[in-house]
């Protein structure tokens, strides 16, 4: 489309036809103020802040509703306009409580900023103000009516953006009020988007309010630790007695794959960090009881016992469990540690999606993995299984907004009437468990259709849907863990004729995909490389044990039989999460590193207090394969990152940590990236580093050194480090060639988290619990197992 040329304040500006004047001005660097205008939400023209002079128009016009037209001449900064803006602020301040000193938004309030810019400081208002008490609408949402300027952003983001429609406008005139859907409270997804989008302090968060002033916080942009979508989140942190406390989560710079979006977990559920049961000291079992000890003692015990088992019984007597919430660097390091230090391939993790099958189905066209951004831009989407609204809130947001803003066609096939059907061009319900037949049918096997016919959809409708899908170039096919193993292969095959088709395989935890990509498998090395063909890893690591290791069920079996002598469990809770028999662990020497005394940790011999993902650095890979930076924000004194712990255990086993973490060899040493909001990381390790004869700046605790190795050895991960460090998501490519595997589909156990649960972590989040309790549900419905 050719550009339209206009003149703004004497400056020539060109923008595509259809552009709103306010956007055209913004792109040309001319700021037109507004409250009610918000990109991608419906237009209101209500706040009248954006009034500008358009030549030939008698009255001032709202730049937020005016579409530019060729030759338009616009003035945005005349006396008349400045007076109009000033008067709007005066009108607003008339009834505004002016309680900025105690308002959460003070310091980051758009009304404050505008009053400052347009000089509406002198008060002409003498009348008593309309007052109303503040209301609590939910555990996380508070509403202070007098502060509300009625920009309707909250109403729109809740309705148009979230498809929740929990907020309305009631009464009229000066009595107009934003109202929650349940009379005096809200029943909604508690995403907090309304709070985030509020330009003033009318909507505030129960988690953050009255805790601090915005300028007292440092802000760290990192990646959310909950579901597998990988929202970028900015954590506001403040010094506390116990280290660094996270006081707020939001997405204030609106960058990243999620733009505006965060769900309840991303926004509030960082509070587990300061749960009173958080472990801050290593525990060693003495006389049958877990007893607080020092890190030195713990490393000594672990080092000597693991060395003993390895040397006496061999690596196959040790089982290692990785985590779906530790960083890529930690997962990589853990499997490397298992393979080169413990000399075992007995390593696995809680698998929630069949990524190995996904990779092997796509070995011919590794570029066909869609990114989270593709979900927002694809012309058409096929969603099979899963309920993204509950399990992948960002994905659901992207889908909804793609449909709303770009009119994408959405095809939903599910055994349940999931909420996204409301955006769907077509929604077809299938019997529970018929996903396999669905894949076969889509792949062209007509006989499989019988299994799909129990619902209201007729044979003809199924066939016409299949036809329609085949003529959807650019289709993105998204599937949940219902589709596994050979069904993934059928599904991929079904789309072979569609031009530019792409896929997304949905896993459940923040770094489920990363754990898979980093080779936390008994038979697959990083990049899904088969053990039989260790290639570069063999050289790089100086050898890889040949024998395929045990899967988790096999480890349990071996332990039950008394053959597995030691467990090293990193950030996982198999007893609580997978309902495994604790007996399988009670026979062996068990090391657990975690934040809490989980069901698995209570039976361990040594428990190490670990830092969580908000307290360390590295990278996460979301379920689409988008790589993002994890930055250190909070800190709890006494804990250590899993990365550091693994290195220290290797050190205590007498292994040369220089070989484990090739620091100083790659492109970057830790130049501070891993330190997040704090400094002094180097000082903190100073004593140990010096004692070990290592130079302070070149630290083996530098996750970037492992990232170097990952980027060196996994071509799909060779993305721009600069962009990554700048906080941008980088889409990784799937490995080509002979990668991936078809495992036993039973190894996959979905996490079944919903909006308000998040494995074990979620159980320690006060906010999540309060929201759940607020809904008066029975606790057994809520108890979601740990990861």
């Amino acid at each position, binding site marked *: 489309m050719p550009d339209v040329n206009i003149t703004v304040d004497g400056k020539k500006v060109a923008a595509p036809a259809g552009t709103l004047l306010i956007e055209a001005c913004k792109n040309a660097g001319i700021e037109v103020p507004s409250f009610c205008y918000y990109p991608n939400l419906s*237009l*209101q*023209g*209500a*706040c*009248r*802040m954006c*009034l500008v002079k358009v030549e030939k128009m008698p*009255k*001032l016009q709202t730049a937020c*509703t005016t579409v530019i037209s060729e030759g338009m001449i616009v003035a945005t900064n005349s006396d008349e306009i400045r*007076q*109009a803006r000033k*008067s*709007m602020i*005066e*009108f*607003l301040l*008339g*009834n505004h409580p002016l309680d900025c000193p105690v308002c959460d938004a003070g310091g980051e309030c758009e009304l404050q900023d505008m009053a400052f810019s347009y000089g509406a400081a002198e008060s*002409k*208002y*003498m*009348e*008593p103000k*309309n*007052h*109303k008490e503040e209301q609590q609408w939910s555990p996380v949402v508070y509403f202070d009516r007098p502060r509300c*300027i*009625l920009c309707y952003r909250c109403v729109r983001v809740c309705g148009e953006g979230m498809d929740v429609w929990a907020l309305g*406008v009631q*009464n*009229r*005139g*000066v*009595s*107009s009020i934003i109202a929650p859907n349940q009379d005096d409270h809200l029943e909604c997804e508690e995403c907090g988007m309304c709070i985030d989008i509020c330009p003033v302090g009318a909507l505030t968060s129960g988690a953050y309010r009255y805790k601090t002033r915005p300028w007292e916080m440092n802000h760290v942009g990192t990646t959310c630790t909950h579901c597998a979508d990988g929202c970028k989140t900015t954590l506001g942190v403040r010094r506390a007695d116990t280290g660094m406390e996270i006081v707020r989560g939001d997405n204030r710079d609106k960058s990243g794959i999620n733009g505006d979006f965060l769900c309840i977990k991303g926004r509030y559920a960082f509070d587990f960090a300061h749960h009173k049961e958080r472990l801050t000291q290593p525990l060693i079992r003495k006389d049958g009881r877990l007893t607080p000890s020092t890190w030195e003692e713990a490393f000594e015990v672990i080092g000597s016992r693991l060395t003993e088992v390895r040397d006496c019984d061999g690596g196959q007597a040790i089982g290692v469990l990785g985590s779906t919430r530790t960083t890529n660097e930690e997962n990589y390091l853990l499997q490397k540690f298992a393979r080169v230090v413990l000399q075992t391939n007995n390593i696995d993790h809680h698998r929630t999606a069949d990524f190995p099958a996904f990779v092997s189905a796509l070995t011919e066209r590794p570029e066909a993995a869609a990114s989270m951004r593709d979900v927002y831009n694809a012309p058409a989407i096929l969603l099979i299984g899963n309920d993204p609204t509950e399990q992948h809130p960002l994905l659901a947001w992207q889908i909804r907004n793609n449909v709303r803003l770009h009119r994408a066609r959405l095809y939903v096939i599910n055994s349940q009437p999931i909420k996204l059907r409301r955006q769907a061009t077509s929604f077809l319900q299938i019997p529970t468990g018929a996903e396999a037949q669905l894949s076969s049918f889509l792949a062209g096997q007509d006989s499989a259709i019988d299994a799909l016919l129990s619902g209201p959809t007729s044979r003809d409708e199924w066939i016409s849907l299949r036809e329609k899908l085949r003529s959807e170039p650019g289709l993105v096919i998204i599937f949940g863990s219902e589709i596994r193993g050979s069904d993934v292969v059928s599904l991929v095959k079904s789309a072979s004729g569609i031009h530019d088709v792409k896929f997304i395989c949905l896993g459940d935890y923040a770094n489920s995909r990363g754990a898979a990509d980093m080779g936390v498998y008994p038979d697959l090395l990083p990049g899904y490389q088969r053990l039989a063909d260790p290639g570069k890893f063999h050289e790089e690591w100086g050898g890889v044990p040949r024998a395929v290791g045990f899967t988790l069920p096999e480890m349990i079996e071996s332990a039950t039989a008394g053959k597995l002598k030691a467990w090293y469990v990193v950030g996982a809770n198999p007893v609580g999460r997978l309902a495994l028999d604790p007996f399988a662990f009670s026979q062996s020497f068990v090391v657990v590193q975690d934040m809490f005394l989980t069901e698995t940790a209570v039976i361990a011999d040594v428990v190490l207090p670990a830092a969580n993902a908000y307290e360390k650095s590295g990278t996460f890979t979301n379920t689409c394969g988008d790589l993002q930076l994890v930055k250190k924000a909070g800190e709890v004194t006494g804990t250590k990152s899993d990365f550091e712990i693994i290195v220290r255990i290797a050190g205590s086993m007498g292994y040369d940590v220089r070989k484990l973490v090739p620091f100083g060899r790659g492109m970057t040493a830790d130049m501070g990236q891993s330190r997040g909001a704090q400094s002094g990381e180097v000082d903190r390790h100073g004593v140990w580093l010096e004692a070990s004869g290592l130079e302070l700046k070149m630290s083996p605790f530098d996750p970037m050194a492992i990232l170097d190795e990952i980027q060196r050895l996994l071509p799909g991960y060779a993305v721009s480090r600069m962009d990554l460090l700048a906080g941008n998501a980088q889409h990784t490519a799937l490995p080509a060639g002979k990668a991936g595997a078809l495992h036993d589909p039973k190894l996959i156990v979905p996490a079944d988290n919903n909006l308000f649960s998040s494995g074990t972590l979620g159980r320690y989040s006060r906010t999540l619990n309060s929201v759940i309790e607020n809904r008066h549900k029975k606790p057994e419905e809520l108890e979601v197992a740990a990861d």
Partner: protein
Amino acid sequence: MADLVSHPDEVRVVSKRFGKGATNIDRYLELDGYKAVQKALGMQPDAIVNEVKNSGLRGRGGAGFNTGMKWSFVPKQSPKPKYVLCNGDESEPGTCKDRLIFEHDPHAMIEGVIIAGLAVGATTGYIYIRGEYRYLLEIMQKAIADAYSRGYLGKNIFGSDRHFDIYWHGGAGAYEVGEESALMESLEGKRGIPRIRPPFPAVVGLWGGPTVINNAETLASVPHIILGGADWYANLGPPKNGGTRLFCLSGHLEHPGVYELPMGYNLKRMIYEVGGGILNGRKLKAVVPGGSSTPILSPEEIDVAMDFDSLTKVGSMLGSGGVVVLDETTCMVKFALRIMKFYQHESCGWCIPCREGTDWLKKTLTRFHAGGGLKKDIDNIQYLSENMLGRTFCPLGDAAAMPTISIVKKFRKEFEEHLDGRPCPFEKQGKIEELPVMV
């Protein structure tokens, strides 16, 4: 229900069937009823539009836009159905004329809506009547039902190949809903919040279809134009201001009432001849010429022709035909306050200047009238009104600002007389009003 009046100067066009039992369809037919629509059925749509355009008929809802011109903006082709919407929300203070048309001549409304439909290619019309006028809604319901039973509505109206449906619709109390885009929202079952324009209703209106919206009196005038011809109608009034209109005379007059007078009729004569002069022989203080939204006129300004252009020239507006006469006993501060109280109550609240401005002004005027006024308040009332003017989302904000500005300008002295804690010189006793509370 409401009393009818008459005066020799009246030229009865729209009101010619008032009091003649025309709610009865047979009686209506005897009184030339449904002749215009049958004539229109034989005309090309463009010919209807031109006839109305040339008649100089201007919207009786307030803005005074040429009706035929408005119809010509409706696109000929439209993928969505087109509609005619009759605006019978009549809520402008001082206005009580549409009520009489619905009461006495409901079939004329039906005829007008059908003709508008024929002109723009719509096949459905809605007649929106304000909720307080329940008895009129019932009259309209019966008229519509009668028209259907005679085959004047529905399929093949009057045996032609044309179809036309008309539905009645009742409001529930909201002045702002009379604003055309808020009217559509209300009809669609929503809050009466106006819509962003452009697009204008003629292009994107009810349920997205092109929609002609006209005031009840405007539409009721149309059949007469079709029958009597554009020239006849145009010549009833001055150039560009065709026809007659229903003037609602109220306030301090000896003979208030609704009179149909030619456009351009002299206001002074209207007050002193038609309205019978000021009540009890008192002196005139001011006149609201066209409903509460129009700037007030002082006695020196009333020698003016009551048509759209002449009133614009004297800085006011013809508005909706509501002529409210104020005598010397009227407190202008109180009057300004009552007007503002109305707009504060009726502001839809959507946009900042109107929502906050009307509330602020109402509070200030309340305090001022109660004796708590300060000198700077007078300027502030002016300042606030000027800050609303031309900057609100819909014209309601202007409607609140314009009369206020004119009252302060023309009656500043009266404001000054309220200063320094003095009781209102016009009140029997200085009544202190309660300050408004938020609901």
